[in-house]
């Protein structure tokens, strides 16, 4: 019974996702259709043609406003704060609605339409050149990030409180759901990869795991304030990998460096005069962490792109004939349900893998002889 309920919930979610996308794109078709009839002068970029790439990339990439849907050619978006600092104009804070979806410029700033900074806010200098100011805008991803942070803090502090309140008693409610995960990270990830000194790194690993896990899951929910592509934005895993890298470098023991620069058991001619092995070992130190970034980023982006690709199918077929569009939507929704289930798994696995590898790297750094 419970399983049926869950499947129904997923179906509803997938349905909502489809609907929100449908409403986001269909009116565009309508307006372009009416544009053909009335030969109106609505300046659409791609009139009469559904651009799958634009739709997918528009979702996957960051933006200055949170697009909800488009009704009769009008974009309904939630404007987000733009925070800019430039040498000439100093600090500027305003809402992204000032740009009117990128059509207008404001205070000498505008969203570049093409070139190196396409889609980003640029400052137009006196000689007409576009330069990039320091852009600390709370973009869609940043807002989703802050939302997930608040959620994370709220959930775990309330769980901590229930631990304090129900001392020595069996776990209850949310506590019951999170406890196995916490114990799993503690026993199977931290303790087994780091060893005795795991307790020092456990708070970091737990934060890392739940941060990635929550953001991955929120990415699957298609309604604001979730649904942004947070862990699929490369800046996010980069920062987390930087944390792991810093911890590894700071806490590394002597043996770790010896193993890199003068690994024992390697013939001397591999180290001198050309330090082949040391170079490989040293670069692997960075490559490991770069791969950590790419693994998480690519998995999450791929999930989003595939899901959106299925939705794009509806509109590509819908342009050929309305019936084909409706027909393909059944298959699309079935696939999306399957994909969402898969993505739930991926959400967990990627959080786990990132945490496990971080723990392993820390464990390697702490090793004192084989």
């Amino acid at each position: 019974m419970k399983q049926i309920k869950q499947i129904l919930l997923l179906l509803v979610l997938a349905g909502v996702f489809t609907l929100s996308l449908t409403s986001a794109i269909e009116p565009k078709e309508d307006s372009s259709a009416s544009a053909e009839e009335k030969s109106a002068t609505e300046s659409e970029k791609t009139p009469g043609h559904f651009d799958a790439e634009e739709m997918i990339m528009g979702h996957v990439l960051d933006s200055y406003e949170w697009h909800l849907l488009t009704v009769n050619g009008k974009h309904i978006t939630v404007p987000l704060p733009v925070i800019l600092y430039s040498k000439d104009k100093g600090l500027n804070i305003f809402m992204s609605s000032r740009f009117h979806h990128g059509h207008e410029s404001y205070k000498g700033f505008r969203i570049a339409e093409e070139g190196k900074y396409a889609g980003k806010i640029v400052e137009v200098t006196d000689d007409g050149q576009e330069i990039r100011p320091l852009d600390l805008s709370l973009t869609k991803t940043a807002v989703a990030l802050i939302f997930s942070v608040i959620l994370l803090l709220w959930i775990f502090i309330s769980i901590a409180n229930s631990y304090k309140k129900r001392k020595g008693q069996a776990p209850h409610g949310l506590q019951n759901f999170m406890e196995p995960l916490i114990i799993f990270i503690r026993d199977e990830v931290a303790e087994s990869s780091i060893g005795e000194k795991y307790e020092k790194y456990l708070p970091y690993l737990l934060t890392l795991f739940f941060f990635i896990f929550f953001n991955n899951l929120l990415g699957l929910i298609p309604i604001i304030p979730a649904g942004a592509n947070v862990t699929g934005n490369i800046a996010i895993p980069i920062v987390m990998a930087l944390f792991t890298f810093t911890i590894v470098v700071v806490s590394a023991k002597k043996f770790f460096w010896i193993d890199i620069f003068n690994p024992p058991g390697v013939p001397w001619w591999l180290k001198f005069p050309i330090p082949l092995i040391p170079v490989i070992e040293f670069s692997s130190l960075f490559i490991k962490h770069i791969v950590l970034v790419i693994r998480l980023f690519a998995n999450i982006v791929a999930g989003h792109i595939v899901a959106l690709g299925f939705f794009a199918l509806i509109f590509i077929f819908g342009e050929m004939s309305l019936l084909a569009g409706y027909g393909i939507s059944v298959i699309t929704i079935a696939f999306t349900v399957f994909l969402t289930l898969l993505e739930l798994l991926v959400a967990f696995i990627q959080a786990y893998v990132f945490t496990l590898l971080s723990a392993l790297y820390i464990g390697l750094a702490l090793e004192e002889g084989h």
Partner: protein
Amino acid sequence: MELVTPEAGLLFWMLLSFTIVLIILKKFAWKPILNSLKEREDSIADALQSAEKAKEEMKKLKADNEAVIRQAKAEREKILQEAREIKIKIVEQAKEEASQEANKMIELARVNIRNEEAKALEQIKTQVAELSVDIAGKILREKLADTKEQQKLVEKYLKDIQLN
């Protein structure tokens, strides 16, 4: 390309929010959660250990009890055996005593009977003697009713006495 180019602003926000999350969660969430998890695990381990101990003790107690019961049973058996023996002895003794008593009584009865017999015989003897004297008297009286005769007899006795 934009996909794989990190944005400075987002890097900044991520760095900031991740640091904040890490610090706050470490202090207000992980510490109490991990502490109470550990506490609970310890208390469960303690409880299990003491349960094991109690089990062991129970086993020991049970073994003790069994030994006591076994002993008690053996004792009971012994007592019963003794009682049985005593009973047999008592019965035997009683039988012997009874037979002795009976013998005594029989003996006594015999003696009594004998005495009675003798007494009865004596009595019969005297009675017979009396009766015979009586009869003799009566006969004599009859016979001596005639004075002649009486004279004759007295003379006869007198002759006998003189002879003596």
